[in-house]
């Protein structure tokens, strides 16, 4: 016996971020060139400054040379400014291209993941990965590339130039900057910790608000507003506290750097000044060094900053990669992705199907044969596994053992799109989209026309309701369809399923919120539709179950009874009890 492992999270292919960078080689090379040019010019300009100042102190400068020097200054300055623009534009634009491609890929992958995955992940968490995590990756690429290349270049070239100009002063600059970068890095680390704290708290606050707003009816119905407000107040104070903790380190960054810079400035002036007084150094050289001090400040600070960005980007990349590497447990087993052409038979068979979720057994040894064109009714107590059973047919999940066949083929050997294409599924808790009714009904059809939508609405007995809406089929629904009555929502879901004219129709308890009269009308109209196709429907009501060709009773994940309505009411068991409970003649007639 083979048993298919339902939880395959082991990555098969190692997805690398490089995949997204390699197509942009040219931009990366361009960035390097821009860096070289700007750094070169920016190291040369202070030298010009030195020439001017020394010329002035030593009175060797005439206005012609001054103009010439200034001319060069202007020219180089202009080039530096222009190149500096591309230095930013290239890597940032690249990072947005990567962001776009990555987000597309992740979404595309998400559309392939199974229901199981969506149950285990919180929507909010997926949203965070799709937005802030991808943004962090982007920043790590854009800023990391920009600052990383620049810092390294500046460090290398500035050291050479400074050493060549004056080794003593350059040692001073280095001994100043090394501890600064260190301390800066520490502050950033503290900051990051508080930032993370705050971020977690913020998402707690937004989860709380989100739930309060989407469960507003329940809140109001139980008069929970006061309690909710108090809880929110608590969370809100937490926000202030955590924010201030973060601010304590964040606000220190700029004053600290500025102070450190002042320290460097005065040390250079003091030590260099003594040498000037001694006559060992010129004021021009000193100015040149001060300019280097200035110029190196940002790239060096950016070193810690971009390092922390890259670190955060890495963490985010791991989180995003988790999605990309997660494989749907539903991939086709065979390589055969072409649907078989002679696929005429839409009979369904369950062979020895069992289902475990997280170690709990929900379905046991289900054997069923539903010939093409027949209708199977499914009933059973609450939580017995009816919904799970029908979701196996549409491969919302795969059985732990055994198999489900359609037309004699294991559905795991069919392309998923093909399988779903032949199924019309009306779920027990349908999700409607906040768009027009028309869009919702025609959701599963490539190009729905008015006739089809009218037909589908008519079968589900929705037409009269729609006629009553001012905007008819153009009525825009509220989120999750909240502006419809419960029965209207269910019937919209039925229309949506039959509008596809599927070979297999699955209706999971879709008439529970519909009154008996409408139910009878719908069943009457559905009858011809169901006759043409294989139908599974779940219901608690005898009045609908009796339409089925065969009825199965599921109790505790097992089929305990099967047969036609007439056979089953004669057997002792769940079904006949259900029948008695629902046939109230005795009690009612005794009263009248």
């Amino acid at each position, binding site marked *: 016996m083979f048993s298919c492992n339902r939880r395959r999270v082991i990555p098969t292919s190692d997805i690398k971020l490089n995949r997204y960078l390699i197509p942009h080689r040219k931009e990366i090379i361009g960035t390097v060139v821009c860096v070289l040019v700007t750094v070169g010019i920016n190291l040369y300009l202070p030298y010009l400054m030195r020439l001017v100042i020394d010329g*002035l*102190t030593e009175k060797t*400068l005439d*206005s012609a040379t*001054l103009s010439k020097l*200034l001319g060069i*200054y202007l020219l180089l*300055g202009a080039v530096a*400014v222009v190149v500096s623009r*591309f230095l*930013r534009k290239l890597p940032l634009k690249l990072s947005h*291209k990567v962001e*776009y491609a990555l987000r597309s890929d992740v*979404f595309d992958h998400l559309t392939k993941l199974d229901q199981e995955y*969506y*149950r285990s992940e919180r*929507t909010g968490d997926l*949203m965070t990965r799709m*937005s802030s995590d991808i943004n962090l990756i982007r920043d790590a690429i854009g800023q990391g590339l920009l600052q990383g290349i620049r810092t390294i270049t500046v460090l290398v070239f500035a050291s050479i130039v400074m050493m060549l100009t004056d080794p003593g002063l350059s040692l001073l600059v280095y001994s100043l900057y090394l501890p600064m970068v260190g301390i800066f890095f520490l502050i950033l680390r503290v900051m990051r910790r508080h930032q993370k704290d705050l971020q977690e708290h913020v998402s707690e*606050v*937004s989860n709380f*608000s*989100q739930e309060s707003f989407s469960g*507003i*009816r*329940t809140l109001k119905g*139980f008069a929970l507003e*006061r309690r909710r407000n108090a809880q929110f107040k608590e969370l809100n104070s937490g926000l*202030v506290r955590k*924010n*201030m903790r973060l*601010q304590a380190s964040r*606000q*220190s960054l700029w*004053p600290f750097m*500025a*102070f450190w810079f002042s320290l460097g*400035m005065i040390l250079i*002036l003091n030590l260099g000044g003594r040498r000037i007084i001694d006559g060992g150094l010129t004021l021009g050289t000193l100015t040149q060094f001060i300019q280097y001090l200035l110029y190196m400040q940002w790239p060096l600070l950016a070193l810690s900053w971009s390092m922390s960005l890259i670190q955060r980007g890495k963490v985010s990349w791991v989180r995003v990669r988790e999605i990309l590497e997660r494989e749907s447990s539903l991939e086709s087993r065979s390589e055969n992705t072409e649907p078989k052409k002679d696929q005429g038979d839409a009979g369904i068979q369950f062979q020895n199907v069992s289902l475990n979720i997280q170690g*709990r057994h929900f379905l046991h040894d289900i054997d069923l044969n539903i010939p093409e064109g027949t209708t199977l009714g499914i009933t059973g107590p609450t*939580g017995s596994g009816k919904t799970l059973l029908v979701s196996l047919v*549409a491969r919302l999940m795969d059985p732990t053992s055994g198999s489900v066949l359609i037309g004699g083929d294991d559905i795991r050997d069919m392309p998923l799109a093909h399988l779903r294409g032949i199924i019309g*599924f009306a*779920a*027990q808790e349908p999700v409607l*989209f906040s768009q027009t009714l028309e869009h919702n009904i025609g959701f*599963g059809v490539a190009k729905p026309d008015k006739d089809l939508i009218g037909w589908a609405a008519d079968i589900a007995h929705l037409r009269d309701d729609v006629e009553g809406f001012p905007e008819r089929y153009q009525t825009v629904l509220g989120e999750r369809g*909240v*502006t419809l009555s*419960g029965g209207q929502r269910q019937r919209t879901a039925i229309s949506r399923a039959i509008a596809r004219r599927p070979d297999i129709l699955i209706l999971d308890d879709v008439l*529970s*919120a*519909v009154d*008996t009269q409408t139910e009878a009308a719908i069943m*009457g109209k559905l009858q011809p539709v169901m006759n043409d196709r294989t139908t599974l429907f779940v219901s608690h009501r005898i*009045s609908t179950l009796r339409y089925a060709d065969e009825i199965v009773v599921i109790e505790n994940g097992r089929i305990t009874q099967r047969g036609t309505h007439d056979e089953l009411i004669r057997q002792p068991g769940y079904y006949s009890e259900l029948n008695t*409970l629902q046939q*109230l003649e005795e009690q*009612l007639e005794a009263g*009248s």
Partner: protein
Amino acid sequence: MKMAKRLLAYSLPYWRWLSLALVMIAFTSLSINYLPILIQRVTDQCLMNTSSPVAERIDLLMKLSLLYISIAAIGHGVRYFQGLLTAWIGQKIIYDLRLEVFRKVLRMHQAYFDQTAVGTLMTRVTSDIERLQHFVTEGVVGTIADLFMLLGIMGYMIYISPSLSLAIFIPLPLLFAFLLYINVKLRNANRDIRDRQSRLNALLQEDLTGMTTIQLFNREASAMVDFDQRNTHLRSAYFDEVHWFSLYFPTIEGGQAISILLILAVGGMLILNGSTAITLGIFVAFLAYIRDFFRPLGSLADKAGSFQIAMASIERVFNLLDRPEEVADPAEPANPDHIAGTIAFNNVWFAYTEENWVIKDLSFSVEPGQVLAVVGATGAGKSTITNLIGRFYDVQKGAVTIDGVDVRNFRKSDLNERLGYVFQDPFIFAGSVADNISLQTPGISRSDIVNAARTVNAHAFIEAMPEGYDTVMNERGEGLSLGQKQLLVMARTLAQEPELLFVLDEATASVDTATELLIQDALGKMMCNRTSIVIAHRLSTIRHADRILVMRHGELVDQGTHEELMAHDGYYRHLYELLLHAPEP
């Protein structure tokens, strides 16, 4: 402007602290910007002053250096504390405001939630309010700080050399105008990014929650197309941003380069021409000033550019705060100690949207202890009746009364505390099973919780869950069957023990019949001294009702006991016969 004023009103309670912050800002500006003057003195009096003796020069150099470092330490220290103080004030303001907005949202009427996406509300309590805080701390206080810095620097510059200053200041307005222009563009791009990001997120949110539906209906490709469209849109907004952003720093760099060039040119020429107005010290000091000068300048342009965006957020938040609460609490609420529980509808008319009447001239009443059942076709307006009793909506004409008092005279919380609802859609909070039943109401013990669960036959399946009553459930109770959710919600209502009324809106529609009857018997006991309203489609559910309302298209077509209705030969009897003589397939 009026908006800004109103916002500033929120900072009024903190005016003392704000004034302190302003004093600190002034102090910082004066002290820090004095530093380049010390550099000038070092250069001129120590380094270049060849006329005095070396020892004296070195002595002065040490003194000036010490002075320099002390002023720098104090200045930046004060600056740090000023930053903290300002941040704290901002946090206080935003704290008050966020609380106010959240409370306001919870007070809004149900119709508001029908029309407003949850995502929009989330934006109000999160990013809009953050932008407000930003506006107060960075915008107002920050602008003042920048202006002080700028004025301080300019003052000192003019003080040490008016001519050189003038040379530098001349191109400044142009530069500032250009920066402002870039900033406005940048802000627009930023706004586009935010709009497009939130539109992308809205789509994403809906797609992720409905992914199973999308897959079942093979809509992956078209979902991808929609997504790609918004993603591309977002990218182009980002490209816009990069376009302007990549101009911003080069412009400042250019401004700096031009200023340095001007200093070198004008200063150089003056010195060459033998002017004594410019010394090398001034030269060096100016180079230092130039560096500090552009930061506040850029940041001022930044703030001016973001003013509009901040205003838009402020407007949205205040609009929300100003929105009328259509279902408001009365000024003088009735609060009778004891309510017997006679519910009556007197000629009630109601429409969700104007003139589209859902309830038409409805009148009925239920006595205390009675069970009222409402039946009728789907969409007839049954759930709407329950909405009107709990004041989720207010009636347009007529009145709903409890013991003869119009429900509009009750405070909503007083009212709802006495009612027990089971809504048609079970809502499960993320949290443990026990918390979902008790709702953390004080006084509900674990044994009460278990009792309630037993009453509705939910105990068995809860015990079977991995951690029983402490199992933490996902969003909206994913992983429970619908029937199980309905039982859970039912247990919740029982555990709350409402004193007046039960409203059950198809509470057991997806529950098997045996369990349903079990629940009814249990409820029968609990309901005996409370009024209850039951909406159901199954006759089995309503057989115990003292009174049955038959509704159709928002109108009452019949009412009475089962026997009376059966005698009427109307809708009810038709319904009943349908049930008995369902057509044989």
